[in-house]
Structures are given as C-alpha cells and as structure tokens.
C-alpha cells in the first residue's frame, strides 16, 4: 500500500462551508500584512433577515397586524416573508450556483447565540473587522411598499428585533436604524426613540424609493438627525419595476446601474436643493454605489451649476465641494479596472477623510479589506483611515480588536 501523500486536502467550497474557511485567504492577508492589529470598521455588511422573519414579526406593535403575520407564517408553508415587497423570484445573484455564499449559508451553527450573531462574528473574525455595521437584505426594497403604514410597522419591528438580537449579541455589531422614510413623522419618531442607543450609530434611508429627499416634510427629521450627532445614510438598491431600468435584461446590467442610479438622483436633489446649507452639521453617508459615479456627478453638477446658478440659490460653493467635504462614502463595490481613474477618484472625493471601507459580505460582489490595503498610491495613514479611522470618527468608536483567537 502506498504511503499517505504528504499534502493537505482542501474541500470544494459550497453553501455549507464555514464562513471562516470561505474567507480564509482574507484572514491570512490581514495577518501577513499586520492590519489585523488595526481597528477595522466594515460599514456595510448584511444579514438575511427574511430567514428570521417569523421572529421579527413578533416585534410588530399593532396586535392585529402581528396576529395576521403570525397566522400567515403558521399556515402558509413556503410563502415569502409576510408583508415584504421585492422580487423574491428574481434573485439569481449567485449566478447559477457559481457564487455559493450569495445563494445561502447553511454552515453549522451550534445552539446558543442567534445564528445571525454567530455568522456576523465569523465574518468579522475572517475579515479582521472590529466593528461590523449590519444592514438587512430584503428590506432594502421596503421603500417601494404600496402601503406606507406597512413600511412603518415592519421597519419598526425590524429595528426592535435588531436591538434585541444583533446589537445585544456582540459589542462590535452596529446598526443604522431603518427609517420609514415614506412617512416623515414616523421616521422622526424612530430617530427620537433610538438616537441614544450606543450601537445605533446612524439612520438608514433605503434609496430605492420615489420620495424627493428635499421635501420640506423632512426638515424636522433632518434637524433631529443633525442634533443627534449621528449620520444619515442612503443605502442603494435596485428594483426591476423601475421604469427607467425596465429594458435591462440581466442582473449584471441591473446591478451596474440600479445600485448607482437611485443614489445619483438623491444626491443631485440633496446638493442642488441646498440640504448641506440648511443643515450644516448634518452628515450624510452614501452606501453601496461604488465610487465611479461620484467624479461623474461632481463634474456634471458643477458644469450645469455654473450656467444656471439662479436655479440653485442655496449653494455658496460648487456642488463638488459639498460632495467632497460634507458627504461620506462607502467603498464597495470599488471599481478597480483602471488604477489611474481610481487614484483620481480618491483625490476628488478626498478619500483620506471621506471614504469608509465596506465589505457588503455576504453578497456576490463583496470586497475584502485587501482591496484598500493593496492600493499602491495610498500611504499607511490613508489605509488606516479608510479601513477604520474615518468610520471611528464618524460613528464615535473606540479602538477595538476583531473577534476570534486573541481578539475581542
């Protein structure tokens, strides 16, 4: 009989692979370069709240609606999550099984802490992340709900579940409270109720919606967020029913445009209607649109503003100056195809103070911290800032180590 081969076998990766093995190369990269000893902040990761939806509907405050939701889940096997909108049948981001972590994560989780806490901690350990801001997934569509009261009820239930489950599960897990933005007074109530929570580090508007962000109905909301000292975040998304994107036949095309277009529209209104002048201490954070759109919009708005300043009389400076000084950006999915263009983008958006690395894990287009660390044009100080320091300042976070052996 042959002697055993002197090699260690590595298994094929699938939906049942442990997150720490799946991301082992990222963990080794962090260890090899020593940035596992920095304080990294991932300002945009996700959990799949639809898996826990039966628990979340228990947090609906309206007793009648809560009972309807519970009855729905008790009696309709295989039905989509109660009350959520979105394209549950159109989600083939895993590209036909090519990207297993996008399809599902069926890895073993021992009884004990909530599954989403365990999975989040595993991702934090693998990515060497000390703090991970966790966003929902299916609820990114909730701004398209035809019934505004349902956005309020489900958004509030989700916020309460997040506080009781995710934020209570680990001091490094953070959230930005969901704002039911289609009902401004209810969005204001969320701010008033959750602004004091130390792990609610800001407030989220899901960008897939058709409400104008400059509507004066939001001014009390913006004032309250400004006074909270925490940022407002616009988290991008897509929607197959968006008429402007209806001709696109692939998720590739939809993702390329949809996740950018919504934030381009909101940013245009945010700047030209003078929100940064009306609320000078209000900090806005623009999430998951990548970076390439920002230089485009800066140039486009500046060009038009110089010819028609009477249409934007609130502005005291160029639109690009507000975008570079008063707005913060998450990095993922960072377009890396043209290094010169990327370097210029970093310069134009003042990345050393305004850019925050994000992973978007476990989605198909996630970025490891290595995408920032490996950039040849950044100093170590800039890398430290983008990978964590800028987020620590924006959210007021002390230094911390990632979870895992020797960590938090």
């Amino acid at each position, binding site marked *: 009989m*042959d002697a055993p*081969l*002197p*090699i*260690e*076998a*590595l*298994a*094929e*990766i*699938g939906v049942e692979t442990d997150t720490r093995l*799946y991301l*082992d*190369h*990222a963990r*080794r*990269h962090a260890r*090899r370069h020593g940035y596992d000893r920095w304080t990294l902040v991932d300002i945009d990761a996700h959990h799949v709240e639809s898996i826990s939806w039966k628990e979340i509907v228990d947090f609906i405050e309206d007793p009648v609606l809560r009972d309807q939701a519970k009855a729905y889940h008790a009696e309709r096997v295989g039905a989509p999550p109660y009350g959520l909108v979105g394209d549950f049948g159109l989600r083939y981001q895993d*590209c*036909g*099984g*090519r*990207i*297993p*972590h996008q399809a599902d994560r069926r890895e073993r989780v021992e009884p004990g802490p909530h599954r989403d806490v365990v999975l989040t901690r595993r991702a934090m350990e693998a990515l060497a992340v000390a703090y991970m801001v966790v966003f929902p997934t299916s609820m990114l569509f909730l701004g398209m709900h035809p019934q505004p009261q349902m956005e309020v009820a489900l958004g509030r239930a989700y916020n309460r579940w997040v506080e009781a489950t995710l934020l209570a599960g680990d001091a490094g897990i953070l959230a930005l409270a969901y704002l039911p933005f289609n009902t401004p007074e209810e969005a204001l109530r969320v701010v008033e109720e959750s602004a004091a929570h130390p792990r609610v580090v800001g407030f989220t508007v899901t960008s897939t919606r058709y409400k104008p962000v400059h509507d004066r109905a939001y001014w009390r909301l913006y004032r309250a967020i400004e006074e909270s000292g925490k940022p407002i975040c616009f988290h991008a998304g897509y929607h197959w029913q968006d008429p402007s994107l209806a001709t696109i036949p692939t998720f590739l095309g939809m993702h390329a445009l949809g996740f950018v277009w919504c934030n381009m529209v909101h940013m245009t209104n945010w700047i030209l209607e003078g929100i940064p002048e009306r609320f000078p201490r209000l900090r806005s954070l623009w999430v998951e649109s990548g970076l390439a759109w920002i230089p485009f919009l800066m140039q486009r708005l500046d060009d038009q503003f110089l010819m028609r300043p009477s249409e934007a009389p609130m502005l005291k400076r160029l639109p690009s100056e507000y975008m570079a000084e008063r707005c913060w950006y998450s990095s993922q999915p960072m377009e890396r195809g043209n290094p010169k263009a990327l370097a210029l983008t970093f310069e134009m958006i003042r990345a050393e103070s305004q850019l925050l690395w994000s992973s978007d894990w476990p989605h*198909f*287009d*996630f*970025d*490891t911290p*290595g*995408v920032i660390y490996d950039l040849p044009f950044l100093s170590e100080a800039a890398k430290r800032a983008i990978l964590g320091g800028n987020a620590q300042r924006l959210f007021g976070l002390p230094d911390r180590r990632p979870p895992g052996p020797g960590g938090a």
Partner: protein
Amino acid sequence: MAEYRVAREGDLAEGEKRVFVAGGVEIGLFRLDGRFIAWRNACPHQGGPVCQGRIFRRVIAEAGETGRPAGRRYHERDVNIVCPWHGAEFDIRTGVHVGSGLLRLAPVATLLRDGAVHVAIADEVEHGDGA
C-alpha cells in the same frame, strides 16, 4: 525547486479536480484530455480560493447568419473553474479569464513519474495567503 507527490495517476478521473496544500502552497490539480494541469489557488481578481470553486462549462452565444441571436448554449469542450468569491471564470486549460486576458491564473508545473503526479514549486515562491 521542490517536488511534491500529490496524487496517484488514477486518483483523478477525466474532468475532476483536487485542491491541496503542498510545500505551504495551495494548488488546484485538474485532469483534462488525460493531462494534469495545476494552478495556484489564488484568484487574480481579488485573491479568492479560485480552485476550490465549482467547474462549469463555458457559456457562449453567437449571432445567427441573419444577425438574429442564436441563444446561449454551453461550449462542447471548454470548461471553466469559477472562483467562489466573486464568480470570476477561468479556462482550466489556459488559466485565462474568459472575459479578459488581463486576468490569468498562476501555473504550477506538473510531471508524471512512476504512476504518480508531482508538482514542482519554485523555492522563491511567496508563501503568502496560503495561495
């Protein structure tokens, strides 16, 4: 240059792969056309464990004679290894990304000797992220 015996010739059937660590380096070994082909388990896109992904036949589409789309189909011969991190697809025979020649897998030399597959790893290879 160090050699490592990594498989018996009969261990891999046509179209199969194995991924392993030899000499501190992660390597994917594939058998195609009766030959053994080896690539470093490091995706040039973002460093993912590319060889631990799944194998798919290449998807192609060609315009018909009148310009009408002929629809998508699978290539009869070409097969790709797909990185499980982001879906980057590489031709197993060439190591080249199916959409851009700028992305290429790093090759590992293989040789058959005494019915066993060996890989040769350069002494100066960087034993980085396991890849």
